[in-house]
């Protein structure tokens, strides 16, 4: 069956480890920080009324994926490539 390739048929790329709210998460090398939040199942930020939000547009337009990256607030995580040991935190 050719459609719906199982995960093990995906090209294996080296992974790196980043920290999402203090928990280690493995992501493929070259992944964006937004992918780490999605992999961890953790929101990037809380909205002004407290709703959990994750990346939406994936291209730096909507600002839904804003989070804290290595201590810096308001980074659009869909535009920030992950680096080994990067610390990512949900923005309150």
């Amino acid at each position: 069956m050719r459609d719906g390739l199982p995960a093990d048929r995906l090209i294996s790329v080296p992974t790196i480890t980043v920290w999402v709210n203090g928990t280690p998460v493995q992501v493929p090398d070259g992944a964006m920080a937004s992918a780490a939040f999605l992999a961890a199942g953790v929101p990037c930020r809380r909205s002004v009324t407290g709703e959990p939000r994750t990346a939406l547009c994936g291209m730096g337009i909507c600002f839904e994926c804003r989070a804290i990256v290595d201590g810096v607030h308001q980074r659009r995580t869909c535009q920030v490539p992950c680096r080994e040991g990067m610390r990512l935190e949900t923005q309150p």
Partner: protein
Amino acid sequence: MTAHKTQHAQVLVVGAGPAGMAAATAAANAGAHVTVLDDNPDAGGQIWRGGVPASGDQRDSARDRAFRAFRASTASLQTGRRVIDAPRPRTLRAFSEATGTIETFTWEQLILATGARERLLPFPGWTLPGVFGAGGLQALVKGGFSVAGKRIVVAGSGPLLLAVAAHLQQYGAKVVSVAEQAGLRALIPFAATLCSHPGKVWQGARYRVALRNVGYRTGCWPVAAQGTDKLTAVRLTNGERIWTEPCDLLACGFHLVPNTELPALLGCSLVHNPSGDCVAVDATQRTSLENVYCAGEPTGIAGLDAALLQGRIAGLAAANRPDDAKALFKQRDREQAFGKALDRAFALRSDLRSLARPETIVCRCEDVPYSRLQSQPSWTEAKLQTRCGMGPCQGRICGPAVQTLFGWRNISIRPPLFPVPLSALVSEATLESAGDLSGERPGRDTPPAS
């Protein structure tokens, strides 16, 4: 200080997607000194976004050719820079998030290739984690988000839906349904138009083969996303009945809208269009302003082939090669006709205007619900009364939504075009005033930019 460097370009290109790459390559090969700015980490725009590969990846020869030619040219690419304003004539400033600094670029000829974004429409549950734009989810998957084994509903409108669904399957997802809001009656004339674009038929056929076990429903749209903390199902309708499709993710976008913020800020004339304003250009892609050109989706959504031709024409015209530019007009016009057919085929049905409930959030930055907007007479008034469109995205998401829902147009574009941290503005203001004092040290009382 390195923060305050001014760079000069004979031709400055904003946007390194297909149109911007084509423009830069053509202008550089014609001998111009070209600089290209882009907000993303790399060139390619959204359609040619790089990232984490899948084993089923097809070689894309158009992409490969464009990248080879662009990299072989003398055009210099500066990524991670979003243009924020135009403080003086023939001057743009860009903010670099990585360094936290503002950079200044001066130009003789300017080419705007700012691309398009998805139109996202509010419906109950659309702010739940697990709901994405259609192209949005595709971009995030390229950015390393694994969808292997996930059940995904792809919904909305436009040719992008099939491309996204095929792409998600290639990454191991189980696409359970593709729901296109346009009805079959609107799509049949579009299919006929395709006969004069054989390349596009071939592309479409490839998607259909990849998706042969997936239901592609026309005249079908989402009415609600369900779940408490995250998405568990989507409610779909065909106008007659409503059913529930259990899924892990929803990829939903309603075709594209041009990114016209920068052209509008500069004062370029726009063409008003019910599906979104476009930048007005002449045959050489020149805007209403002298020495300012525009290419690709901002001039009207017409797809990749049109963008590449428009880019080449703009690049040649900006580099003073009018005859070479003219040779491409006919081909470009043919591709633009395809864009017109797209607009007709994927026109939004009025049912989409009544999906939001009173409590449904319309402005996601400021969490403004539909009920607070209903009574407003205009977007200007809505901004003042509710803060709709006043958050960090500055109305890029809710703007096209309120245009669809209420017919409001955004008539005020103000700098900065994107939020800039105060620290960057303060250091920039200090340095500017240092320059004004011609060599004197900046005074401690230098006022920060407000």
